[in-house]
């Protein structure tokens, strides 16, 4: 029964993650910890394994149809990985609770921005291309995303999709697809670290990965058909859920519940 629940959770997380360019951890980790009582130290590496699977499954379709920007992904990935390595060095120096509170507040702001309907940007001609702008902002933001991923264990999608969309002039669907491509390598590195230390529960990961791959395949097909405005609002909801998780994490870190 548990395996069927995990399969279903993976299916939902993979579907949502593929459409929005996030890893699905925002769904999977609470589902495993709160729903199934799985210890956090097992849930996190299993969730990271699912992020890799989701990225591989969805990004193959996005790259093939030229929705994911391979060049932009390489540029931003370098900054993200550099930030993550730097974050790993300073992890012991900064209280994660304060970082979580600030990040949670930022996510609330970003979520509100995405939820507010805006006048649609000048429509690209069918099959038209765009040119990313403001690379310094993109690289700086990706550096911060990498540091946050090392300090808080969050994926890059919730930061990078709004960063590319609002800051770099990248269409939302391209941003989501490119984020989907990028999260695979950072999650792969993290899960490799857990696996080397013997903290990856493959029995837990197996049904999750199968579900995620099926969900990601479906999600990548749906994403191109769904209106951008709907995707943005859905992303706003997910960001808000993540914001609540971060604010809770920060709050209980600073004022532990006895």
């Amino acid at each position: 029964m548990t395996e069927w629940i995990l399969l279903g959770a993976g299916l939902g997380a993979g579907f949502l993650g593929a459409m929005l360019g996030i890893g699905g951890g925002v769904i999977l980790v609470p589902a495993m910890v709160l729903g199934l009582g799985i210890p956090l130290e097992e849930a996190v590496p299993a969730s990271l394994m699912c992020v890799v699977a989701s990225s591989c499954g969805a990004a193959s379709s996005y790259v093939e149809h030229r929705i994911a920007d391979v060049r932009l992904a390489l540029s931003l990935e370098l900054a993200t990985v550099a930030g993550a390595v730097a974050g790993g060095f300073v992890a012991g120096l900064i209280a994660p609770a304060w970082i979580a509170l600030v990040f949670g507040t930022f996510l609330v702001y970003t979520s509100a921005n995405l939820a507010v309907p805006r006048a649609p940007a000048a429509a690209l001609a069918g099959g038209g291309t765009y040119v990313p702008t403001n690379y310094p902002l993109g690289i700086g933001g990706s550096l911060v995303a990498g540091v946050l991923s090392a300090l808080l264990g969050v994926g890059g999608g919730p930061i990078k999709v709004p960063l590319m969309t609002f800051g770099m002039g990248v269409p939302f669907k391209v941003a989501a697809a490119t984020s989907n491509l990028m999260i695979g390598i950072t999650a792969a590195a993290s899960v490799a670290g857990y696996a080397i230390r013997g903290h990856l529960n493959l029995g837990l990961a197996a049904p999750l990965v199968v579900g995620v791959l099926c969900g990601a395949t479906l999600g990548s097909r749906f994403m191109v058909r769904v209106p951008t405005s709907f995707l943005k609002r859905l992303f706003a909801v997910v960001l808000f859920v993540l914001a609540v998780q971060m604010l809770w994490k920060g709050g209980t870190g600073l004022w532990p519940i006895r």
Partner: protein
Amino acid sequence: MAVPTPPPAPAAVAPEAAPRARAMEGEKAIARVLRAGAVLGGGCFAASLALELLPQSARTGIAIDDLRKAGASLLIVTPVARIAIAGALLGMKGELRYLLYGAAILALLGIALGAGFSA
């Protein structure tokens, strides 16, 4: 007697045009690598789940474990291969900075793993 005219049909809503990223040669190769990793890795995990339905024995247990390790390894290696291939393809087309970016990413990841960090 005047024949009532039917109301005009609502204008068909044109599907939203999907924006496209800048073209690069080798996209299909990158997509195939990602798809192969996903299918093979996922296939190993799915096979391990199928084996769990069989009567359990020591051999079955070992096979399940080996399949899961193979699946995890394939999935972890796939994004690494993607970066290497993308950087190499763009480098061969004269876009050397992407070759350097790819090499730098892989070097940083190696450092992170060696130092025991999670990227």
